[in-house]
């Protein structure tokens, strides 16, 4: 399954990519499987999106897809079909924070 993922600007710089990336995701398309694939392909992003030990989302990182905020969804819940089919991207976003 090929999933489209969009990184925030600072993580695109770290990963040395531009625009969105496409990742092969094995098994069910969940936030956990997508983020596992992100970190496998771009190991320099480990720890920048979720904690390296607990794998919990960093507080100022948000996840969106298909116009929905998925930040508080369970990591093993299936992502929308449009994301799983590659029709819509999975968005990793730096939260608006800092005043």
């Amino acid at each position, binding site marked *: 399954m090929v999933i489209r993922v969009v990184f*925030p600007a*600072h*993580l695109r*710089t*770290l990963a040395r990519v531009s625009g969105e990336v496409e990742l092969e995701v094995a098994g069910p398309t969940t936030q956990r499987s997508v983020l596992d694939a992100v970190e496998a392909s771009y190991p*320099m992003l*480990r*720890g*920048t*999106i979720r904690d*390296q*030990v607990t794998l919990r989302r*960093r507080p*100022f*990182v948000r996840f969106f897809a298909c116009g929905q905020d998925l930040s508080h969804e369970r990591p093993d819940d299936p992502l929308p079909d449009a994301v799983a089919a590659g029709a819509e991207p999975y968005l990793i976003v*730096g*939260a608006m*924070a*800092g005043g």
Partner: protein
Amino acid sequence: MSGVRVLVGTRKGAFVMTSDEKRESWAIDGPHFAGWEIYHLKGSPVDRDRLYASQSSGWFGQMIQRSDDGGATWSPVGNAFTYDGTPGTHQWYDGTQRPWEFKRVWHLEPSLTDPDTVYAGVEDAALFRTTDGGHTWNELPGLREHPTGPSWQPGAGGMCLHTILLDPANPERIFIAISAAGAFRSDDAGATWRPVNRGLRSEQIPDPNAEVGHCVHRIARHPSRPDVLFMQKHWDVMRSDDAGESWREVSGNLPTDFGFPIDVHAHEPETIYVVPIKSDSEHYVPDGKLRVYRSRTGGNEWEALTNGLPQRDCYVNVLRDAMAVDTLDSCGIYFGTTGGQVYASADSGDSWKPIVRDLPGVLSVEVQTLP
């Protein structure tokens, strides 16, 4: 032709500044890691092109970057800083206990002998080390597990391990300092530690013999005299002549003895530098004047160095890691301000010129002397 490379960490990126031995004309490269806080970057003393940088962000956490070409290009290396075992608790501002939680790397201290070995001082206070060029980091847990650990508490800037001094004569001896726990010494290469704070006096600590709890801001020393230490404490400039066993105050005639950085002249072990700051609630220089103070007597007698520094309407701070000295024959002194200026003196502080005036707030300044 010899020269210098000045490494500047700011709130929004890193800058690499180079000059020849005259230190009059500068090439400025940056920002590297634009938009990220660069708490510290420092080069290996045995491989001048090997640099390490601490890159952090409230959004995306901690990165460590490494350069093998003197800062021209960088690559991320390992960023997993995991406390050894189950971290205990320390005291929080309200007196309750709170678990140790990694926040960021404040200071990177490359080994004096091996470019792949680097010590990292982190918040919440602990000491980590890499021996593979930054790819993996392991805690030296004896420090955090010191019996006084549960009584350590954060300063206003967090509970940070900000100072690491390696001993050129004794590889087993390491000094570190933590805000606001104090200074600690290891005589077995970091396996075990003991507080070395005797003689420090802090108004907020009623017990004059308190073993820990002191807000040490910075410790410096001359490499030729590893047992002589100079300390800028929250308030008070202090000196130890016995490797931290005892401290005495040498604030002398300073206009205020609050401040952050302290450093030692490269060729004169009794010549030291501080930047007095008005108070702990007004983090700027007194009277609108940016003055470095120099003592040529190892403390107590201080002279203001003002030539080339703003002497009116100046309200900047100079943070603890933002002063450095080179080792050229005419010793250069460098410091950066929270207002984004980086000043250099090529004559031991007698006169100053800005290298650059309008950077983001400066968090750290290091200098490498190039052959």
